[in-house]
């Protein structure tokens, strides 16, 4: 590994994050009655005790040197703001108001723990309560939890939750579900002997999915907008599931879509999960993000993860606490609903702060701008000879096909300065989708970006 940093400073030098002085250490050892810190490690088997410092790693460095090193690595990456950029598929480039990052960097939010002592954690707890309410309202559901790691793990937890609630062991995933999500569901379910059927990739497979609602099905899992951007009416899927006493788990990867499309709660979903990154959180190369999980009231005791509830203090004042902990690992141990013990704390705070800045009016406007940008892009691309749109009803993401293999097509666009989306074949293996590109547009894409895309694509295809 090539490091900018040279091993220079010795181990005796003071380090800025360590307040103890050599004199402090000596005095403390005296108070304790120990000769040296080695005494504390006497239980370590002799063969496992290390002499000196681990080799082949750099020694400590000042702030400036570290910043240079990390800055040099950062500079090697092309950012999403450096030119026309149209990548979606589960993470979206949006503008986040400056005040959001200020709020989450408040020491009292950034450097605190899970709110176990509610008397001195009302800040976190009230924001979680507000977050839960916002998520419930957005999705049209009755309740939501304090967040999950991300959308994909929220989806796998929802699948397990549906199996617990129905006492069945089969889940069926639509072919329009993001393959990373489908794979995450598979990995989590397989270890518990739950059968996972993932339908073949499809731009729209509502009819096929409905066929899988059977007496032993725990849930149907459908993503809308799906990985190809298609917006689906979930009502017939919910009806089919419910007719067999199965549940509908609906998934989304673009939460802004809920500002424009009918919420899953109004279409009969029992559990709604999704990725909340778009609101408040940067792209950040894949994480940390914030998983959203909402459900019907009757399923609340099957929910995984932290939940905040309202109560009163000894003087009768409204306050908030973590609650329903009898579902959780620290109480239930091997009988817990999940092994989860953290949520996405700070990312959910970013989400709730951004959502508060938006409000219904702002969210609706943001959603419309996204939709219009994608429609403008679709119009511009569709007008090019040899381009076929594969998604007719969409929010801010859609798929198109050309006669050219998508890897080569995207590389050619890249050479012209346009990051033109994701090839479907990067997500789906060997399924005849070699020429399909999935492309997203948001409020961050200007008219000029869209024109640049169309021009570049026209040149590449001609």
């Amino acid at each position, binding site marked *: 590994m090539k490091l900018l940093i040279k091993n220079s400073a010795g181990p005796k030098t003071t380090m800025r994050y360590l307040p103890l002085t050599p004199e402090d250490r000596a005095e403390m050892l005296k108070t304790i009655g120990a000769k040296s810190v080695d005494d504390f490690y006497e239980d370590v088997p002799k063969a496992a005790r290390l002499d000196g410092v681990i080799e082949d790693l750099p020694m400590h460095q000042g702030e400036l040197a570290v910043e240079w090193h990390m800055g040099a690595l950062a500079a090697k990456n092309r950012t999403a703001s450096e030119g026309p950029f149209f990548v979606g598929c589960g993470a979206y480039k949006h503008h986040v108001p400056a005040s959001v990052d200020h709020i989450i960097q408040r020491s009292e939010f950034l450097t*605190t723990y899970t709110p176990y002592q509610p008397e001195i954690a009302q800040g976190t707890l009230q924001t979680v309560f507000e977050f839960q309410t916002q998520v419930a309202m957005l999705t049209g559901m009755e309740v939501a939890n304090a967040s999950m790691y991300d959308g994909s793990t929220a989806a796998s937890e929802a699948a397990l939750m549906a199996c617990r609630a129905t006492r069945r062991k089969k889940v069926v995933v639509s072919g329009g579900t993001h393959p990373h999500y489908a794979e*995450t569901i598979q990995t989590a379910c397989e270890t518990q002997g739950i059968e996972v059927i993932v339908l073949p990739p499809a731009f729209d497979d509502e009819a096929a999915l409905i066929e899988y609602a059977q007496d032993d099905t725990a849930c149907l899992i459908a993503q809308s907008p799906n990985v190809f951007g298609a917006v689906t009416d979930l009502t017939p899927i919910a009806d089919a599931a419910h007719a067999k006493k199965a549940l509908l788990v609906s998934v989304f990867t673009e939460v802004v879509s809920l500002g424009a499309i009918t919420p899953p709660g109004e279409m009969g979903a029992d559990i709604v999960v999704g990725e909340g990154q778009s609101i408040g959180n940067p792209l950040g190369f894949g994480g940390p993000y914030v998983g959203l999980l909402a459900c019907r009231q009757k399923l609340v005791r099957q929910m995984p993860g932290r939940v905040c509830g309202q109560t*009163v203090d000894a003087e009768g004042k409204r306050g908030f606490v973590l609650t329903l902990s009898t579902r959780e690992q620290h109480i239930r141990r091997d009988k817990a609903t999940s092994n989860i013990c953290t949520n996405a704390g700070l990312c*959910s705070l970013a989400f709730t702060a951004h959502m508060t800045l938006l409000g219904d009016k702002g969210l609706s406007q943001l959603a419309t701008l996204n939709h219009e940008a994608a429609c403008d892009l679709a119009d511009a691309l569709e007008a090019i000879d040899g381009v076929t749109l594969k998604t007719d009803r969409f929010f801010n993401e859609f798929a198109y096909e050309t006669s050219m293999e998508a890897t080569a097509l995207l590389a050619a666009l890249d050479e012209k300065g346009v990051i033109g989306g994701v090839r479907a074949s990067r997500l789906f293996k060997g399924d005849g989708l070699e020429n399909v590109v999935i492309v997203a547009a948001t409020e961050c894409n200007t008219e000029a970006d869209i024109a640049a895309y169309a021009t570049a694509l026209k040149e590449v295809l001609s």
Partner: protein
Amino acid sequence: MNIETVSGSKGLLQKEELIFDIGTTETTGVDLPKPTGRKGRLGRLKRENGTGLPGLSEPEAVRHYVRLSQKNYAIDLGLFPLGSCTMKHNPRLNEKVARMPGFSDIHPMQPQHTVQGALEVIDELADWLKKLTGMPAVAMSPKAGAHGEWCGMAAIRAALIDRGEVETRTRVLVPESAHGTNPATAVQCGFKVQEIAASDDGRVDLNDLKAKLEGDTSDVAGIMLTNPNTCGLFERDIKEIADLIHEAGGYFYCDGANFNAIVGRVRPRDLGVDAMHINLHKTFSTPHGGGGPGAGPTVLSDRLAKYAPTPIMMVDKSDGERKLVLVDDEAEMAGTDHKPLGRMCAFHGQMGMFTRALTYMLSHGADGLKQVAEDAVLNANYIQSRLSKVMSPAFEGYCMHEALFSDEFLKDTENETVDIAKGLIDEGYHPMTVYFPLVVHGAMLIEPTETESKAELDRFCEALESVASKARSGDSSLKQAPYHAPMRRLDETQAARKPVLRWVAE
């Protein structure tokens, strides 16, 4: 004297209602361009009913959250001695680096040749983790400690599938002192849990373990053991435990939550570990953020390395230049050993935590990290030594990075552990971990970390000594503490009995 105010605020402590009480659906704190009103492509699925979400203007929103923030305790305000949680100082350089556009504004699905610097960060962090643990491989995608546990146990399961023994080897041994995530994870991974008793000195009862491994061991999948353990002690029989479990045909999962006590001084490989998660938010200082996000990269031994989840970091030298690639297609792993257990999440882990943790590691260096462990252990022993005069140490001898006390010293009083915790709040400190581990009655687990000065430790000890003495003398005022927090004791029973989990319009 309790003087009521008209506003409900008390000086700097300002009352703050819910956004649903103060915001309106017509208010917004963002200025967006006006949509053109062009024809859309949503058809009949256009949202007709508004969300009802309230908005606030920017000044109102900033005030709302800042006022709320002031009702929180935080590391930046003082010592945060939550045992097993490792609440150390969070360096702000980490935050600055994580926000560099080259890290924060890149997409997980953009072409890999445009993110080589980001892949180098992952690779470099992986290299550190491997060298610090002595292990040959590390899975980077787990998103938290519990997710890392899941990864390690799923890797064990994958190995058992390969051995054709997944149906028979289902028994996982877990000490009764274990963190609740351990048994929960074992069950989530399809195993059955068998508890091992704790010995009188706070460690695994080796005799009980031997008894449980006597005779037929063909059903043993492995053991999940925290080391240093949840009592803050190093498992001195750890090598023997590892050997016993290996002889039984099982694997050794080590919960690495307390790695901060031994980093730079002991490598888990040398203890016989097969898998161990590392909480970047504990040992490597990424912020806890009020409950996440965490990150739980999981190191794997030679026996488990090939089962690491997708995506796998590989090196591509095909066009003469060394390029890093994240590979998730098993076809592209042909010719290698990789047999991934599957995918654990979308994309490839908590990048924002990776940049912070690597920044921290580079700042400390190998020498500084060793000092981190030593100072953490020194601080804990100092606290144990000072407080043993008024409180009851759970076990004899030195501790590692946290000091554990029982409620023995309260036995002739009405006061309990919780009253000590709440009394400490009035003294301006966050309480220690209470009632965990379960093997110690009324447990109080204190972890100061290495980022506290001696002066701060002394102030903390004085405060706790005072509260403990009061409690011991039977002072009943502690029963109603805290008196000086933003709120008095909250009714958790009511919250659970009649759950109100969201605001609803009246």
